[in-house]
């Protein structure tokens, strides 16, 4: 009987502690930054950004990539990371801070194909290469928005756009060639681009194995290098820093493309096809109203405001 008195008391105490712990757990510090997993460790990510600009956020919260926009919009964090071509930036009233010290490289996406596959089916170069040059920043933002804000299926969005550009016919022919394994990373833009590759190839009579939605840059990249997939869309900046292991970012689109494609062809037998003009760079975002109120337009401004507290 004594045991149970003791247990009951312990439970009540515990419950109290639990409730207290829950409430007190969130100590409100001012400059909390919302980031995704990759950005928190990549060489073009948060730690080195803070080094270069000479400041540090009070706390960093890691979450799934898409959640960062909502977290910023809802006012729960003052700053967050995102991708510049995400449709939600405008729609949520967010603003990209200018990277005045040019810390971020350029990230133009292009289809990367294994040389072996291209050798067997050289027509792929023209099929996939036709897509990139037609995608500009506004188009990509709009397509992303259709998925993230309107809730449309990314495959439908990709197909509709390809049809509107007369890049595919409404009915795909029988798949007689291939199979080609198409991959992509897991976020919306990648899913759309991957779907575009799938439809474009199917339209040209290929059988396509859809391996889109791989979790993360490295998973997709390794899959390509090891032949588990034959192609996916990669960004020049990401490949330069992460895959090819360089330290200095390149900020000119053409230069980045030339250097990356040359090196990837020579070292890894991967061919880079025509790139898209838009730069899906990492971006540090704030709520527009908030940024204006604090007089912050660039990352240097942010650094200054944080350091001067």
């Amino acid at each position, binding site marked *: 009987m004594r045991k149970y008195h003791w247990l009951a008391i312990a*439970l009540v105490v515990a419950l109290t502690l639990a409730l207290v712990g*829950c409430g007190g*757990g*969130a100590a409100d510090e001012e400059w909390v930054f919302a980031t995704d997993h990759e950005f928190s460790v990549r060489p073009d990510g948060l730690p080195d950004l803070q080094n270069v600009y000479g400041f540090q956020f009070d706390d960093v919260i*890691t979450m799934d990539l898409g959640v960062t926009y*909502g977290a910023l919009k809802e006012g729960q964090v003052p700053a967050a990371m995102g991708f510049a071509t995400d449709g939600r930036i405008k729609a949520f009233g967010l603003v990209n801070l200018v990277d005045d010290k040019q810390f971020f490289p350029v990230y133009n996406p292009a289809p990367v194909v294994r040389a072996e596959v291209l050798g067997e089916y050289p027509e792929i170069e023209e099929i996939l290469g036709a897509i990139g040059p037609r995608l500009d920043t506004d188009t990509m933002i709009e397509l992303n928005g259709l998925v993230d804000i309107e809730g449309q299926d990314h495959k439908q969005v990709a197909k509709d756009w390809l049809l509107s550009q007369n890049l595919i016919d409404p009915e795909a022919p029988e798949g007689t060639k291939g199979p080609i394994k198409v991959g992509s990373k897991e976020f919306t833009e990648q899913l759309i681009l991957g779907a575009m590759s799938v439809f474009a190839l199917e339209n040209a009579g290929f059988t396509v194995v859809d391996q889109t939605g791989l979790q993360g840059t490295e998973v997709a990249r390794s899959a390509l290098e090891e032949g588990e997939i034959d192609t996916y869309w990669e960004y020049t900046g990401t490949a330069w820093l992460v895959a090819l292991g360089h330290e200095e970012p390149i900020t000119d689109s053409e230069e980045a493309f030339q250097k990356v494609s040359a090196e990837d062809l020579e070292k890894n037998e991967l061919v880079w096809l025509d790139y898209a003009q838009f730069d899906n760079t990492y971006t540090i975002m704030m709520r527009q109203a908030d940024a204006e109120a604090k007089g912050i337009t660039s990352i240097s401004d942010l650094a200054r405001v944080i350091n001067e507290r």
Partner: protein
Amino acid sequence: MRQRNRVLGWTVMPLFLLACGAFTIYYFVENPGGAMAARLLIYPNVFKLIQQHVLLVVVSSLLAIATALPLGILISRPRFRTLGLVVENVVNVAQTVPSLAVLALAFTFLGWGFNTAVFALWCYSLLPILRNTYAGIRSVSPSILEAARGMGMTPGHILGRIELPLATPIIMGGIRTAVVINVGTATLATFIAGGGLGDLIVTGIGVRRTELILAGAILSAVLAILLDHLLSQAEAEFG
């Protein structure tokens, strides 16, 4: 012999597991295997993640015990017989919903963060405790209850001196299940900014750094095994 095993169980095994954990931390912080992993594998960060993970599990488990135990006792009362059957069936169906989904659904209603994660964990771990409390109490042989009533014990007495003590091993089993599930679900909290060791695992998967994955996976596994062991010891004490 049993006494010796008991003492060993409470001291040697936990210490061994803690040593494993400490060694894991030391090993991966000193050998992150590259610049990317090194950015996360620093002592302050690792300890922060462990603390977050433990907090997630402890808070949600205590809340679950505090709610499921009384509730389980309540529905086991003869007066609430039908309610008990209904609840039992609801719980069975509810447990088919994967923990990830509970977390995600909580996220859509409550937003991201530690509190949402705790709420989801609490919801999910309620079920095993509730079910086992109910089953445990109802498993007490009717003849014993008859005898007790015959001796003139009040329902309150019967509950406190007979039903609960006899049901305790089963209840402890439920608590143990709940806690282990919580450690596992807490690794998923990283997707909705709940923190915890899942941060290491998911980042490791994303940037393909084995050190990050191993650090997070081993530490969370050790935590789960440690808590499971401590609770099985407690279960044996009461049984």
